[in-house]
């Protein structure tokens, strides 16, 4: 009897342990709970979009409550994010858009590799290899890219083209020859906002077309020099554009912030082209009340026939998991949610594109569809150069290009490239 009791007890205890284990594992797979803390620096329309995404995620996971840690920053948010991290704030996720910052976080041991999470959650099936490569450092993947922008797309108003009786340019020659017609129609061909950062977009697009993505990657990592002929060629092309009457005078460009330029190109039609991120789509739709594809559109940066015309420059936003993560399950669930069709639908409402393969492109407006097609069919993708450069080189780079715009002479090209090479020596 005693022996029977012992056996029974052992069996019962074993069964109970198995059941408890099953219950626990089922519970963690089905019901997430707790607080999910996110370092969220997004503002404006993108901030609103993130709020909607979080609300949708919370509605789907009622046990999870998202708390945003908002860094105090104006302009470049990295300073504020550093202050938050160095101040010891606990958070699970970080929104990041700067590859150079990702590298810094990895070096400081502040974010975790996500390869195992990719494997267990099947994220690799939803994100193409080129997107995974963007967030991979060395052999490990540290991010989940949830949105991207086509930075090689030049934005214009359709009626401005009609006014100047030209078509959006497909080649560099067409681009240059169109400047005369635009100027004759009283339109500044290109509005270059050089007050802070946006002027660098033109240099980077020229460098991409003339030297290619591989060279830009080497330049960003310090393996190539700023005094290389490739950099000179790109600046010479810009010099040629300036001499062809592409832009305002240097001082006017230096006085323009990005919003004034965007207004000039997409609202008032005082300028024809502007080169910037996908958020212009949101601005044109929501603030100017314009219809994508009808009132405004994009055209890929013209072909230069130098072997790099099928390469595209992109920006992207990703989620990184912080080493201090406390609610890993919820963090992974949110990362996975951002690759769903539901999340992409919310992003599309705000004029942004998702890289997820789960998304039916028909949800996008014609302008996003066009940019998504361009990016997905590109031979190579290149991240925005300015965001790849280490801190002080990134700052000096934009100031050096301002100096070039003030006086786009051969002497300035020499001075600017030498100055950047000098700063680069101490930056890596």
């Amino acid at each position, binding site marked *: 009897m005693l022996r029977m009791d012992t056996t029974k007890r052992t069996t019962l205890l074993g069964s109970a342990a198995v059941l408890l284990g099953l219950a626990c594992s089922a519970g963690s797979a089905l019901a997430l709970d707790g607080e999910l803390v996110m370092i969220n620096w997004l503002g404006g329309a993108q901030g609103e979009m993130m709020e909607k995404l979080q609300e949708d995620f919370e509605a789907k996971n009622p046990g999870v409550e998202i708390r945003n840690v908002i860094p105090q920053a104006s302009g470049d948010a*990295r300073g504020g994010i550093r202050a938050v991290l160095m101040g010891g704030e606990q958070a699970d996720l970080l929104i990041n858009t700067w590859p150079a910052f990702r590298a810094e976080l990895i*070096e400081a041991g502040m974010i975790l590799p996500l390869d195992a999470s990719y494997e267990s959650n099947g994220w690799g099936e939803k994100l193409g290899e080129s997107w995974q490569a963007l967030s991979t450092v060395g052999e490990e993947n540290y991010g989940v890219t949830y949105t991207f922008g086509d930075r090689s797309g030049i934005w214009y108003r359709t009626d401005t083209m009609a006014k100047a009786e030209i078509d959006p340019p497909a080649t560099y020659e067409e681009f240059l020859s169109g400047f005369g017609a635009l100027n004759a129609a009283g339109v500044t061909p290109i509005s270059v906002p050089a*007050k802070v950062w946006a002027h660098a977009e033109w240099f980077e697009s020229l460098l991409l077309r003339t030297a290619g993505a591989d060279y830009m990657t080497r330049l960003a990592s310090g393996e190539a020099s700023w005094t290389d002929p490739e950099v000179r060629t790109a600046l010479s092309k810009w010099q040629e554009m300036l001499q062809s009457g592409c832009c305002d005078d240097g001082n006017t460009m*230096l006085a323009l912030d990005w919003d004034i330029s965007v207004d000039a190109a997409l609202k008032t039609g005082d300028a024809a082209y502007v080169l910037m991120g996908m958020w212009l789509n949101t601005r044109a739709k929501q603030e100017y009340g314009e219809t994508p594809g009808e009132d405004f559109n994009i055209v890929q940066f013209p072909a230069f026939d130098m072997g790099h015309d099928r390469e595209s420059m992109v920006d992207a936003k990703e989620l990184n998991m912080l080493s201090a993560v406390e609610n890993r399950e919820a963090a992974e669930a949110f990362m996975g949610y951002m690759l769903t069709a539901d999340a992409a639908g919310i992003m599309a409402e705000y004029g942004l594109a998702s890289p997820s393969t789960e998304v039916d492109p028909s949800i996008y407006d014609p302008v996003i569809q066009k940019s998504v097609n361009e990016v997905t069919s590109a031979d190579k993708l290149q991240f925005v150069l300015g965001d790849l450069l280490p*801190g002080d080189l990134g700052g000096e780079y934009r100031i050096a290009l301002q100096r070039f715009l003030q006086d786009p002479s051969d002497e300035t090209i020499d001075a600017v490239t030498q100055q950047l090479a000098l700063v680069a020596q101490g930056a890596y």
Partner: protein
Amino acid sequence: MALAETASPDGPIGPSTARLRPAALRQLSDTQAAWLLLTPLLLFFGVSVIYPVIETIRLSFFEIRGLAPPKFDGFGNYIRLFSDANFLNSMKVTLVWALTATFFSVLIGWGLAMLCSLNPQKTLVFRVMIFAAYGVSEAVSGFMWLGIYRPDYGLLNGILEAIGLTNLTQPWLGNPSTALGSVIVAYVWTQVGLPLMTCFASIQSIPKNLFEAAYIDGAKSGSVMRHIIAPLSMPGVRVAIFINLLNSLKAFDLIFMLTGGGPVRSTETVGFFMYRESMLNFKLGYGAASTVILLIAVLVVSIPLILKRTGDAK
């Protein structure tokens, strides 16, 4: 009389106020009571001012790049600062900025105060309006001045065009030769209210019999202003110079809003250099070293003036 009779022997400020204190404090001398009352303030001052200053000085001896661990670097940051052309440029810009902005804001404020003193009643609204600009946040002022200076539809260029001076229109904030002057004009606009008020208060304290005597002797308003109001309002002018100079050394918001230190660093003060190095280039130690230099500059300006103004106080 009653107060004098209860005066504490170590009371430093005249008749003791011991009988006015709560019962628990009556056992304390004036000195002890003063320390007790000052302690919360001193603690707050220590935590919010002294500690950050000490921490900034400590950081300035480290090489810190972003999130990487700090490395002790001795005076390395200071040595590099004084061979950094960008820092030397920012010192030059700061000097021009601080002296010019202080000179014009005090001069205009003083002039307006003298004019207002001729008829204080009728100029009340005007004085309040001018002083209100001093209370407006620099970020808000910056936004307003951006609208005035913008190159396409800016108010200033619009006015110049309307009066036929089209050849004078230009991108005020994009031209390195006009950017600093343009930001100084905007800054003076925000700062002129304080000199107006301090000088006006100083003028109000001039004995009325001096004016009466001057007018009886046949002095005109201009003479009264030159020979009585101007010299006797100097205490207010000195206070205004002191405060405006300190404010201008610390100025940041308006520069950030209008030019971001550009174009090509032409409006980059030491304060902005500090921000760029610390928050944009992520070199906290280097930025801290420039902060210490700025702090020393502020102390060099302020300590002699404070000593002069308060050293002989009874």
